[in-house]
């Protein structure tokens, strides 16, 4: 089994255990890249600075005091252990899958679970503290970040995936469970006591301004944000042929649609939406990546590692 097939979400869907899945993904990915598994871990000395009142006296370099008779404090390149918090959107729209078999047969939620599990595992190997929060309109499940919470995170992800698969279709007239970033992110931000790397996995069916407004809370606390925007191929290309009624998985709204007459305009609207999101997030120094759930997960891992590397240089 080569590395590429190991990253194919269709293949991954056959693996029932998320831990095994995450290990398979990360090890395969790392072996394929021939990179050091310790990449990103840093305890390197950076510089000395003068002691200021209030500094922890444990940081005083006593050897240098012995030579210079002055108090200096040692500073390092970065924190070696950080919080890695995964925010997974579990709203009904995330359950969408464009096909029953082959490419696109994995729902966005499953894909998101794979990503979350893989990256949590990966972070755990980096000795980061991993945590998980699933949400739709509110926090659904929360696993606080901890270096010992990888299994809890994986279990939570597994439960989420199974409950989504077993949950019946949304009955007509049922109350809307559309994802709303503002409230859950607000709560999450308040719970994060340390600076964290926050990974948001969602299909972002909100207006770009609303998304940015919600993310601004997280960014304002000094957290680093990575946003994985998951979309099914059907949501991007809109390949439907027959005129029929479309039903909104989140709100239950029906709309008669003749796909052939609005496919071009739909694609334009989606492209404009993702472009706006990308542009505004870059302006906010948020890493943004759009994922087609029919594509392998390597892009996601690359994106994460690049972001992790960049974050590791921060002091």
């Amino acid at each position: 089994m080569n590395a590429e097939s190991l990253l194919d979400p269709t293949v991954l869907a056959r693996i029932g255990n998320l831990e095994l899945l995450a290990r398979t993904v990360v090890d395969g990915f790392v072996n394929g890249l021939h990179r050091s598994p310790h990449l990103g871990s840093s305890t390197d000395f950076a510089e000395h600075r003068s002691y200021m009142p209030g500094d922890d006296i444990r940081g005083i370099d006593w050897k240098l005091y012995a030579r210079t008779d002055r108090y200096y404090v040692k500073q390092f390149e970065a924190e070696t252990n950080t919080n890695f918090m995964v925010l997974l959107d579990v709203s009904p729209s995330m359950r969408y899958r464009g096909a029953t078999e082959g490419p696109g047969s994995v729902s966005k939620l499953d894909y998101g679970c794979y990503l979350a599990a893989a990256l949590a595992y990966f972070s755990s190997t980096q000795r980061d503290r991993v945590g998980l929060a699933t949400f739709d309109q509110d926090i659904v499940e929360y696993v606080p970040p901890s270096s010992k919470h990888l299994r809890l995170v994986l279990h939570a992800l597994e439960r989420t995936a199974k409950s989504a698969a077993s949950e019946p279709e949304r009955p007509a007239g049922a109350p809307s469970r559309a994802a709303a970033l503002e409230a859950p992110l607000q709560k999450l931000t308040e719970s994060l006591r340390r600076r964290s790397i926050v990974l948001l996995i969602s299909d972002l069916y909100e207006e770009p301004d609303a998304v940015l407004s919600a993310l601004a809370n997280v960014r304002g606390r000094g957290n680093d944000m990575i946003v994985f925007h998951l979309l099914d191929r059907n949501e991007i290309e809109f390949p439907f042929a027959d005129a029929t009624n479309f039903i909104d998985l989140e709100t239950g709204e029906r709309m008669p649609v003749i796909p052939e007459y609005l496919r071009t305009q739909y694609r334009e609207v989606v492209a404009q939406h993702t472009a706006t999101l990308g542009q505004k997030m870059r302006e906010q120094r948020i890493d943004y990546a759009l994922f087609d759930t029919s594509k392998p997960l390597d892009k996601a891992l690359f994106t994460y590692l690049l972001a992790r590397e960049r974050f590791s240089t921060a002091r």
Partner: protein
Amino acid sequence: MGFLAPAFFGGLIAIGIPIAIHLINRERRVVVQFPSLMFLRKVPYRSVRRQKLRHLLLLAMRCLALALLIAAFSRPFFSRHAAAASSLMGAKERVILVDRSYSMGYADHWKRALDAARSAARGVTGNDRATLVFFANDPAAATEPTANQARLEHAIAGAKLSSEGTRYEPALKLAAQILSASNLPRKEVVMISDFQRVGWGRRDDVQLPAGAVMTTVDIGGAPATDLAVTQVSTDRDRAGDRDRVTVTARVTNTGAAARTVDATLDIGGRAVESKSVTVPAKGVAQARFSPSVVPAAATRGTVRITHDSLPANDSFNFTLAPGEAVSVLVVRPSKPRENQSLYLSRALNIGDRPAFHVDVRAEDALRAADLTSRSLVVLDEVAPPNGAIGARLRDAINAGTGLLVVPGDLPAARWTPEWRALMPATLGAVVDRTRDAGGKVASVDYGHPVFEQFSAPRSGDFSTAHLFRYRQLVTSGDSGVIAKLDDGAPALVEKTVGGGKVLMWASSLDEYWTDLPLQPVFLPFMHELAKYAGRYGDARTWFQAGDVLDLSRHGELTGPFVTDAGTDAATAALVLESPSGHRAPLTPAGPEHLATLSEQGFYELRGLGIAAGSGRPIAVNVDPKESDLSHFDPNELVAAVTATPGAGTQQKGEAAAPEELERGQTLWWYLLMVALLLMVAETILSNRLSKAEA
């Protein structure tokens, strides 16, 4: 609303198939679950709902066009056609033909026919027009084309049965003329009749204008039983010095059962004899009455039987009259050849039907009184008289007396200008054919009354006679040649002068120039020649309703009144009074010598000033053929007279058949046009949509 071909509605399946497929597909994928319609809602509305609506409009137009096509092929029509069809299809020209032949008097046929005519008149609504035509042998329009129902009703109320038979062809031709002259879009003939087989011949040929509809209202149809006196013959014989007549009546029975009836002979209004006659089923029986003496004057006679369902043919009228002789005056030269007039006078003296009274006068012994009451004057090789006698003779000719001129070898110079103007030919040279065995009568006009008797084979051969000498006759423009010789020279020529005939024979009437008097054909030839020139017609004992009485050919009827009046036949005033009392002025000749005998019964012809009942009775009977009540299918008639056979139909009462209603309304044409317009609109709309989408 009805349909002639409802099976075409099976074609609606063609519309149902795509719709069914659409519904099935729709059922299969009722909805597509999609993560969010947020982006779809951002697409302009036009691209979703309006596009759908436009396509729904296209679908509706296509389905409607197909449905209209199918409906057109199913040939719809409105059942309640009268007012609805009139307002929908335009005004209608209707000709209502009502049979008033005497057979319609059977049972309640006439009443039902008038009811049907009223119903047809009430069907005239809006801008419709109708013409009411009553017909028997001949049609007569009772109204001009009118939309006034009251006028039609009034004409129907005044209608009476005729004594004539049925002929459909003239009535249909009149209807065709009326419809052809109409500018209304719809044309219809409503024929109300008992549809007797005898009224429509296989050779009858009449066509209604294209698009005209014929509706038939069949009053007859049920098997009819009838007894009728269809024929009366009068056989004469002579008992001593008195003429006797034996009357025999022919009674027919069209019923399926034999019937016994009483047949009564009336003569002069008095019942003479009555006989019981048993007539077999669908058979004939004769009632022979005892001989009776022929009255001294023309007398009315009737044979009648007990009245049944059709009274008109239960009696038969005839007249009994004593024999009437043709008075002939032969004028011979003062010094005649031996036996010059012998052959002629002997020939005419033979025979009693009619009897010829021949008087022979010498040219120089001729008096004016000799010309009185003469039917024929023969100038046997003598010049026409001059002076007062000549003038009297010319007057007599104008009054109807015939003149037979045998010029012989008389010089033409002896004819005065007055006589030259009356003669049918001028005299030429004498042709001598003794060297070639004489000329022969090679060409005769067998259609002429003189030679009509000889038209049948072995009924007289003129080619056996030889004309060794004859006079060259040069005819004028107003005379006719009725016999020619083998060299083309005229042998017998004629000219009409006033009420009389002037004929000229080119050879002689004895054996001096010809051997014709020695031939067997001579005697009948002289008889026919004298009867024609003397204006003698076989005395008819009865006429048939519808016959035209030509008084110029019935001298036996007018003779007493003309000769007594002593006036010009063209101006002699006579009156013909019908059985119903209608009086019509007539003259024995001239422009008013014709009268139609349309009523059954006894007409009376008399001179002005003569009391009623003293004139000459003329018996008129109904056409015996009309007594045959055999029925035929009106559809035969409709198929024969309409351009599209079977388009018309037989109907009881007022309701018309679906085929006829549909043909009259032609809704399919309008549906087809609407469908085509829809298709054009659909093409334009779909092209525009395609361009807009491209």
